[in-house]
């Protein structure tokens, strides 16, 4: 009897094979928006360093429709990154207290609470 194992080809369509892979790709694509927004802020630092006129021009740039759309998308993707990150943290950092492990929802919940507090402080100080 002769063997002739068959190797099935791998294509990029694996992404669409199940919702979980699509969700993974969405999570990964958040990097484009978070990275892109950070680069926009680096541009803002440049404008800030060049004086009030340059900074005013930057604020005007922010008001463009493209910028508004980009900001809305970035906010959504950044929030998705936060949610996925906090939900996955208990898996990466299990905490054994005594015999039992601290439940996932406690660890994730603590992160969400910290996120809410920190965000509130930032917004309160800035606005």
């Amino acid at each position, binding site marked *: 009897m002769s063997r002739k194992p068959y190797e099935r080809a791998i294509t990029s369509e694996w992404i669409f094979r199940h919702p979980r892979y699509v969700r993974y790709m969405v999570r990964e694509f958040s990097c484009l928006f978070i990275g892109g927004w950070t680069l926009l802020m680096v541009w803002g630092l440049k404008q800030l360093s060049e004086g009030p006129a340059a900074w005013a021009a930057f604020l005007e740039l922010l008001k463009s429709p493209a910028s508004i759309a980009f900001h809305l998308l970035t906010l959504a993707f950044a929030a998705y990154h936060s949610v996925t990150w906090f939900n996955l943290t208990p898996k990466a950092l299990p905490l054994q207290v005594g015999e039992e492990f601290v439940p996932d929802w406690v660890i994730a919940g603590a992160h969400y609470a910290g996120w809410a507090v920190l*965000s509130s402080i930032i917004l309160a100080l*800035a606005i």
Partner: protein
Amino acid sequence: MAKSNKPIVWGPFAAGGTLTAFLTPALVLLTLLAALGHAPDLLAYERLHALASHWFAKLVAAGIVFLSLWSAAHRLRITAYDLGVRADTLVATVLYAATLACTGAAIYYLLKI
């Protein structure tokens, strides 16, 4: 197989991912408000310039820029591979170099303030 040096790039990725998870949404909200014409007080030139003049603020800002860009670059590297781009070393070099360059630029502007 020998132990990998991946931790060099993964450490900052994990730190940056955590940082952006906690920080980025609130900051994006601030600039979104500015984009909608309701710029927060902090983004007024005098106030922001005063804050950014402080050495500690520059240090923190540089750190946030570096970690945010690095974790985005690392994720983009992985995503490129997931999408079938096989030249991982090239992609990694380009993305990490770009990150360092942009961080360098940010530090340059911060020092000018």
